[in-house]
């Protein structure tokens, strides 16, 4: 394990050389990620690692991509998607136009999940899904809509557990170990790079997803991100977080109302 002072040096140098600020990331998690990439890339000396980061921009990019966690899945937490399907979509359906933001979308599995739900509710034609991440590499994957075929068994189980009744394989074409998702879904998605640490609001949305992203931030940065979502959410819009995340340390009581027991809140004022 690297020392605290080494982690501070890494944070400072990355900020100084590249302007990227890890200062408000969760320290416990960031330390693990830095240790992990040093191990993956065979560094035993922290200072060898640090100078490669500082002097090789390509390597720096790899480090940021590896540090930012990109674990996701389709219909992750099926009970959440069930509530979405049964309680939230009927509300969104009353809108003439539905704008959705997936913040920290990673490789896009949850964006495709939502597009499938909207499609089945007959709402996809009037929806647009903005999907952003800090990591340009995962956005490329997300844009293509190509995911490993071996994951489809789990995903179709999640889909069914979330109340899906179609044949899940209708949504993709299987080819050489890959599942390519339908263009009908992809054409309603807009992908772009966005940094929750430093970028501002860029539109007003009816629903914002940011699931299992805030856990990598400290309390201050969580508050910043949640206030950014608040500014970007229309009145009566919905905010969805990961199953163990909360807004309670970040925003005043009474402004949001929780939907059932899910990590789903409605902005009421």
């Amino acid at each position: 394990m690297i020392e605290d002072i080494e982690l501070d040096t890494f944070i400072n140098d990355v900020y100084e050389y590249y302007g990227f600020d890890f200062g408000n990331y969760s320290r416990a998690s960031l330390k693990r990620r830095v240790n992990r990439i040093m191990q993956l890339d065979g560094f035993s000396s922290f200072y060898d690692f640090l100078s490669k980061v500082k002097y090789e921009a390509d390597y720096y990019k790899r480090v940021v991509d590896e540090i930012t966690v990109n674990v996701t899945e389709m219909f992750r937490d099926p009970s959440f998607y069930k509530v979405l399907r049964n309680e939230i979509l009927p509300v969104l359906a009353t809108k003439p136009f539905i704008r959705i933001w997936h913040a920290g979308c990673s490789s896009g599995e949850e964006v495709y999940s939502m597009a499938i739900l909207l499609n089945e509710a007959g709402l996809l034609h009037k929806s647009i899904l903005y999907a952003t991440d800090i990591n340009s590499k995962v956005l490329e994957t997300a844009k293509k809509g190509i995911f490993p075929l071996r994951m489809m068994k789990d995903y179709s189980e999640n889909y069914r557990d979330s109340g899906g009744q179609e044949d899940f394989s209708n949504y993709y074409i299987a080819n050489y170990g890959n599942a390519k998702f339908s263009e009908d879904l992809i054409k309603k998605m807009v992908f772009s790079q966005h940094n929750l640490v430093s970028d501002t609001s860029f539109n007003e949305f009816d629903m914002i997803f940011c699931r299992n992203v805030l856990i990598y931030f400290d309390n201050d940065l969580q508050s910043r991100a949640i206030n950014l979502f608040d500014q970007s959410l229309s009145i009566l819009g919905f905010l969805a977080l990961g199953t163990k995340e909360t807004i309670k340390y970040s925003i005043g009581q009474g402004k949001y109302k929780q939907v059932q027991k899910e990590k789903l809140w409605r902005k009421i004022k």
Partner: protein
Amino acid sequence: MEKNKVAANCKVLIIGGSAGSLHVLMDILPNLPAIRSFALVIVLHRKHSDDVTLEELLKIKSKTPLKFIEDKMPFEPGFLYVVPSNYHLLFEKNGTLALDSSEKVNYSRPSIDVSFEAAAEIYSSNVIGILLSGSNADGTAGLQAIQKSGGTVVVQNPTSADMPFMPNNAIQNMIPDYILTTEEILKFILLING
């Protein structure tokens, strides 16, 4: 066993287990009084699912109140914490808990190694780590980290474990402070609770 020193120092008692360890906990938890002087953390391998059945079960069995873990929640003595399914549990320097949904470690999320190492990092000699039954190598590296930072390491006696692989793996790779049967683990915890 000179447990007085261990007892006075304990801030975190962290128990890791896999296959065959749930009933060990079921034998231990109901026989413990409400613990006040340290926090009790349980990291159990479990089937991927988003439910809270395990938490509910342990909550019923434990006199120490259970707190359902949420990210960045304060970590306090006198409570039982059960690591949620599909997350790794980490500890922050400022006394809060942090969750992490990154890659599995030892095919597991939660991973015992991850939480043991994180506890050792923050609470060093104030950690007692107990590794129970299981058929996976998870936990050994974590116990080594706890020992290295001055904490105390307990391994379930493999002869009393349903799945001896996990405790055996630890014993083959390090020298635990104690190797105890289920009954002895209970006595040990009662003793450190004073």
